[in-house]
C-alpha cells in the first residue's frame, strides 16, 4: 500500500482542524474526531480481527475479537479495549496485536472462546473457504483447543424463511444480522433470544423472517450461521468464476457480483458501490436469476411455417423471412417498434435507430406498461438529458441527494416494493439525518411506515389534486434547499399527475427524480426509443438537431421522419386496425399493458410480427419470426439507473452463439439494406456517445388534474401496484424467493368494508365484466370507496383478469364462504 502524505505524520506537522493525533503501533496518525479506532487502524493498513464490526452498521462491540491495548494520557487502560466501539482521542497510544503481546493474547483468548461451541463443520459448511472465522482462526487463533467437554448443539438447519437457513451452532452472536434487520431494513423479524450460554439468534414462532432484504444477512454473516437455501452445498469459492455486474431487476442499477460454475449462475452477491447500493441488494436482485436456464429459453431462430407452427430454422433463413416481411410492410402501411423496458442502453439505441433508419418511422415506444402523452412531455422536460454529473441544469437527483435531502415527496411509486435500494436510502436518511418523507399513496404501506412517511392519502385518479395542493407543511418542507420529489412511472395512470409534480417542483424549487420500475426505462429515454425523442435527448421536432443526427448516422438529408410517432397504445391500435402492417417487438409482456386484451388482439391481427425474445412468451406464440436474444448474463452493455448513472456490466457466462438485440437488429438491418453500425454493444455505445446528450428543451406538461370516479353501490375505485416478489417473468423458477412474497390481499378500509359487506380475513371478489379476482380481505387506511389489489401477484393478475387499472371502477362483493384464513 502506498502511503499518502496524510499518513506521513511527524511531531512537527500541524494537526488539521477537527482531527486528533494518536499513535498506533508506534506510528503517528491524525484521525477525524469521532472516528472509530478500528477504522483508523485500517487506514494505516493494520487489520485488527473482527466479526461484529461492519462499516454500515452501528457499533455493537458484541464479539470482542478486536481487542487492543490502549493508553490514555500516559496511563494504560486496565483491560484491553474493543477497537470497534472506541473512538479516537488526542494523545491516545494504541498497541494492536502486532506490537502488544497482551492484545495478541486477549485476541487469542476471545477466539478460543468463540470456537468453544463452534462445530467443526467447515467441510460441509457453505461458508468454508470464504469464512472470516476460518481465516481469522488460522491467523490469530491457537493451534490447539483446550476444550474437551461436549459442545452445545442445536437441531440444524432451521429454515427461518424459505430462502434463509439458520444454523445456531455456528453462530458467534455478532448480531450483524439482527442489527441489519433492525437498522437497515427495518424488519425486526430476527433477534437474540435467551440469555447467557443459551443465547441464540431466532425468530418468532408465528412470524417467519419476512423481509425483502433478508439475503443481505447471509452475505454479512461472518460465519456460516446463515446460509442460502438456493445456494446450499452448490459450490466452493475456488470453483466460482466471479463477474462484476449490474442488477437487471429494477431501475436502481445495483452493483453486484455474479458467481458461476461451469456455465451456470449459482449465486449473486451485492457489490460495494457507496454511491448507489452501498453493500446491499434486495432479495429479488440476489435470488432471481434462474430464468436464464428455465425451460422456456429460446436458443434457435424460429419461423412460422405454412402449417401455422413455429419451426427452428437457421439464422440466415429467419433473417431473410423477417426482412422480406418487414420490407413488404414498410412499402405498405408501415412498421411499429415496441422494444420493451428491459433493454440496455445499447440495445434500446439499436431499436431506436432501427425504427428511424430501417423502418423509417417514429412509431417506437419502449413503455410496455400504462402510459400517456403527458408522460412523454414530462420525460422530455424533466428526465431526458439529465445525469448525476450533468452540466448545470442537467444535474439529476442522486441517491446521495436523497440521503441529504431535508424532505422527500414520493408519488406514483412505493420504493420498498418497486425500488428497494431507494427505500433503504430513504430509511437511512430518515434514521440518521432527520429526513421528512411524504408519500402520496392510497394507504400506508409497510415501506412508508419504515421510512417515517407522512402519507397523503389520495383516491386513485385524483392524485394530481393532492400533489397540486399538498398543504402548507409539505410546501414548506419541499421549499428547503435540497428537497426532492420522487415520481414513479405509475404516475402515468393518473391524469394530470405528472403536470402537478412538475408544477409543484416549479413552485417549491424541489428537484425531480423519475423512478421507473424497470431497469431499461431510463436508458431507453436517453436512447430515443420514444415517439417524440431521438437518441441523445433530441426532440423529433427539432429540425436542426435532426439534421445533425442525419449527418452522424450518414443518412440522406430529410430522410429521418419529422413527425412525432404513435405511442405504444396507438401503435397496438394501429396494428389491430391495419394502419400498421408489421410489428417488431422486444421484451414486451402484453399482460403489462393497460389493456392486455387489446394488446393481444393487435398482436394477433397484425400482418407480420417479429419477436426478439429470451423466453417463449405470449408474443412469441403469435409471432411470425422469433429471433432469440441474449439475457443479461450473456451480453455486455450498460443500464442507466434512475439517476441517469451509467451502470456497465460484462458478459458473465459463455455467450457463444447468443446474440444481443443490437447485433440481431444490425444484421436484420443489413438484410433490409441499411446499416445500423450496432454490431457490438461497444459500437452502439460509441455512436450514442458521439451523438452526445442534451435537454430536449421542450416545455413542462400542463394537463388538467384528473378526478376520481364515484363508486356506486357495490362498487369501489381500484388502486393497484406491484409487489417486489410477485409473478414477474424474471422471477420464474425461484421457489425459495417466491416463498418470501407478501401474501396478496384485497385491501380496504373499515367503513368501506362495512358498506360492501366485507369481513376481514374472509374472501372478497373484485370483478369487472371481464373477470373476477378473489382474495382475502385485509383492512388498511385507504380512503373511502377504494380497494387495493397487487397488480401481478399469485391469484391477482389485475390487468389480464379485470382489464381494469388504477383508478377504474370495479365491483366488489363478499364471497360468503365463511372461510377465515
Amino acid at each position, binding site marked *: 500500500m502506498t502511503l499518502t502524505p496524510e499518513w506521513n505524520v511527524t511531531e512537527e506537522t500541524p494537526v488539521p482542524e477537527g482531527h486528533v493525533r494518536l499513535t498506533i503501533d508506534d506510528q503517528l496518525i491524525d484521525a477525524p474526531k469521532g472516528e472509530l479506532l478500528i477504522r483508523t487502524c485500517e487506514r494505516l493498513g493494520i487489520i485488527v480481527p473482527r466479526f461484529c464490526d461492519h462499516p454500515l452498521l452501528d457499533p455493537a462491540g458484541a464479539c470482542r475479537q478486536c481487542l487492543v491495548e490502549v493508553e490514555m494520557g500516559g496511563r494504560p487502560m486496565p483491560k484491553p479495549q474493543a477497537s470497534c466501539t472506541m473512538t479516537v482521542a488526542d494523545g491516545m497510544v494504541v498497541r494492536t496485536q502486532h506490537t502488544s503481546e497482551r492484545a495478541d493474547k486477549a485476541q487469542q483468548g476471545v477466539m478460543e472462546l468463540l470456537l468453544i461451541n463452534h462445530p467443526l463443520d*467447515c*467441510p*460441509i459448511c457453505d461458508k*468454508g*473457504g470464504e469464512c472470516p472465522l476460518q481465516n481469522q482462526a488460522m491467523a490469530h487463533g491457537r493451534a490447539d483447543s483446550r476444550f474437551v467437554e461436549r459442545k452445545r448443539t442445536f437441531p*440444524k*438447519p432451521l429454515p427461518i424463511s424459505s430462502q434463509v437457513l439458520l444454523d445456531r451452532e455456528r453462530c458467534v452472536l455478532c448480531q450483524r444480522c439482527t442489527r441489519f434487520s433492525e437498522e437497515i431494513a427495518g424488519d425486526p423479524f430476527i433477534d437474540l433470544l435467551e440469555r447467557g450460554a443459551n443465547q441464540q439468534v431466532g425468530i418468532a414462532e408465528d412470524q417467519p423472517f419476512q423481509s425483502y432484504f433478508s439475503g443481505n444477512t447471509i452475505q454479512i454473516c461472518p460465519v456460516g450461521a446463515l446460509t442460502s437455501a438456493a445456494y*446450499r*452445498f*452448490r*459450490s*466452493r469459492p*475456488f*470453483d466460482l468464476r466471479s463477474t462484476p455486474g449490474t442488477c437487471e431487476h429494477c431501475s436502481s442499477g445495483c452493483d453486484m457480483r455474479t458467481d458461476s460454475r461451469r456455465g451456470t449462475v449459482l449465486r449473486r452477491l451485492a457489490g460495494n458501490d457507496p454511491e448507489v447500493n452501498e453493500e446491499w441488494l434486495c432479495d429479488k436482485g440476489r435470488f432471481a436469476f434462474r430464468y436464464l436456464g428455465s425451460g422456456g429459453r429460446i436458443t434457435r431462430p424460429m419461423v412460422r411455417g405454412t402449417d401455422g407452427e413455429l419451426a427452428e430454422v437457421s439464422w440466415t433463413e429467419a433473417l431473410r423471412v423477417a426482412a422480406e416481411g418487414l420490407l413488404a410492410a414498410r412499402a405498405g402501411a408501415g412498421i411499429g417498434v415496441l422494444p420493451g423496458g428491459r433493454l440496455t442502453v445499447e440495445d434500446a439505441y439499436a431499436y431506436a435507430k432501427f425504427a428511424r433508419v430501417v423502418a423509417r418511422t417514429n412509431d417506437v415506444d419502449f413503455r410496455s406498461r400504462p402510459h400517456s402523452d403527458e408522460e412523454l412531455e414530462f420525460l422530455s422536460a424533466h428526465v431526458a438529458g439529465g445525469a448525476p454529473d450533468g452540466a448545470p441544469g442537467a444535474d439529476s437527483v442522486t441517491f446521495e441527494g436523497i440521503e441529504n435531502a431535508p424532505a422527500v415527496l414520493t408519488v406514483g411509486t412505493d420504493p420498498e416494493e418497486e425500488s428497494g435500494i431507494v427505500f433503504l436510502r430513504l430509511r437511512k436518511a430518515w434514521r440518521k439525518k432527520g429526513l421528512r418523507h411524504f408519500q402520496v399513496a392510497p394507504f400506508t404501506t409497510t415501506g412508508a411506515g419504515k421510512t417515517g412517511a407522512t402519507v397523503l392519502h389520495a383516491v386513485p385518479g385524483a392524485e394530481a389534486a393532492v400533489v397540486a395542493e399538498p398543504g402548507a407543511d409539505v410546501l414548506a418542507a419541499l421549499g428547503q434547499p435540497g428537497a426532492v420529489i420522487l415520481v414513479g412511472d405509475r404516475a402515468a395512470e393518473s391524469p394530470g399527475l405528472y403536470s402537478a409534480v412538475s408544477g409543484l417542483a416549479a413552485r417549491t424549487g424541489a428537484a425531480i427524480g423519475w423512478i421507473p420500475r424497470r431497469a431499461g426505462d431510463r436508458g431507453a429515454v436517453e436512447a430515443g426509443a420514444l415517439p417524440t425523442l431521438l437518441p441523445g435527448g433530441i426532440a423529433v421536432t427539432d429540425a436542426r438537431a435532426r439534421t445533425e443526427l442525419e449527418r452522424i448516422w450518414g443518412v440522406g438529408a430529410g430522410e429521418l421522419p419529422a413527425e412525432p410517432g404513435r405511442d405504444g397504445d396507438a401503435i397496438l391500435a394501429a396494428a389491430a386496425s391495419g394502419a400498421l402492417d408489421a410489428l417488431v417487438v422486444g421484451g414486451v409482456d402484453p399482460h403489462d399493458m393497460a389493456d392486455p386484451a387489446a394488446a393481444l388482439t393487435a398482436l394477433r391481427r397484425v400482418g407480420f410480427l417479429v419477436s426478439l425474445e429470451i423466453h417463449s412468451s405470449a408474443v412469441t406464440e403469435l409471432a411470425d419470426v422469433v429471433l432469440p436474444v441474449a439475457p443479461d448474463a450473456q451480453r455486455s452493455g450498460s443500464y442507466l439507473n434512475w439517476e441517469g448513472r451509467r451502470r456497465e456490466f460484462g458478459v458473465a457466462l459463455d455467450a457463444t452463439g447468443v446474440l444481443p438485440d443490437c447485433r440481431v437488429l444490425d444484421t436484420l438491418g443489413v438484410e433490409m439494406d441499411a446499416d445500423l453500425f450496432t454490431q457490438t454493444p461497444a459500437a452502439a455505445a460509441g455512436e450514442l456517445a458521439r451523438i452526445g446528450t442534451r435537454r430536449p428543451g421542450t416545455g413542462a406538461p400542463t394537463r388538467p388534474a384528473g378526478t376520481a370516479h364515484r363508486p356506486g353501490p357495490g362498487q369501489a375505485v381500484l388502486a393497484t401496484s406491484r409487489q417486489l416478489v410477485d409473478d414477474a417473468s424474471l422471477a420464474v423458477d425461484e421457489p425459495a424467493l417466491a416463498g418470501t412474497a407478501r401474501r396478496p390481499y384485497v385491501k380496504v378500509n373499515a367503513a368501506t368494508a362495512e358498506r360492501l359487506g366485507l369481513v376481514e380475513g374472509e374472501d372478497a371478489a373484485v370483478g369487472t365484466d371481464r373477470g373476477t379476482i378473489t382474495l382475502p380481505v385485509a383492512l388498511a387506511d385507504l380512503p373511502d370507496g377504494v380497494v387495493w389489489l397487487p397488480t401481478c401477484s399469485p391469484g391477482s393478475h389485475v390487468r389480464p383478469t379485470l382489464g381494469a387499472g388504477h383508478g377504474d371502477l370495479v365491483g366488489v362483493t363478499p364471497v360468503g364462504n365463511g372461510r377465515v384464513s
Partner: protein
Amino acid sequence: MFDFFKGFGVTFSTMFKKVVTEEYPEDFPPAAPRYHGRHQLNRHPDGLEKCVGCELCAWACPADAIYVEGGDNTEEARYSPGERYGAIYQINYLRCIGCGLCVEACPTRSLTMTNFYELADDNRQDLIYTKEQLMAPLLPGMEQPPHPMRLGDDEQDYYVQGPTLATAASVADQTGEQER
C-alpha cells in the same frame, strides 16, 4: 576374435539366472501395499457414503483432476449421515498424478487409494471415472443408499463409533482397499 565369445558368454550365462520378467497380463503380482493406485470412495458399515461432498480433495489436487458437487440429503433420499453428500464425483485419470494429496485432505477418510493400477484406455471419456465407478463395493451388511441412518441418530454417532463399528465387522478387508 575372443570378444565374440565373451559377448555370447553373457547371453549364455543369463539363461541360468532367475527370470525377472513378469507374465503380464496373464499372471502378475499385486503392487506394493501402499501403492497409489485408483481411488475408492468408502462406505460406512451400513453402506452409507462417507463422502460429504466438501470438495477439499478437489481443492488439494495439484493437477485439477477432481470435480465434486455437493448435494442435500433429505428425509426421502439419504446418501450419507449428516446434511451433505457428494452428488457428483469425478476423477479424471488423464490428469491424476497419483500424489495422494486428495487422500490426505479428505476429512472423513472417504477417499483412499487402492493398488489397482490398470488405468489405460483408448479414449479420453472413459478415463473420467464417475462416482458409480469409484464407490467401494457393497460388502456383507451394507445396503445401497439411499436409505436412512442405521447405525445412529445423527452423523456424530457414525464418526464417534466409527472405529468400533469397523473392527466389529468381521470382514478381513473391511474397506476393500486390497481389491484387485
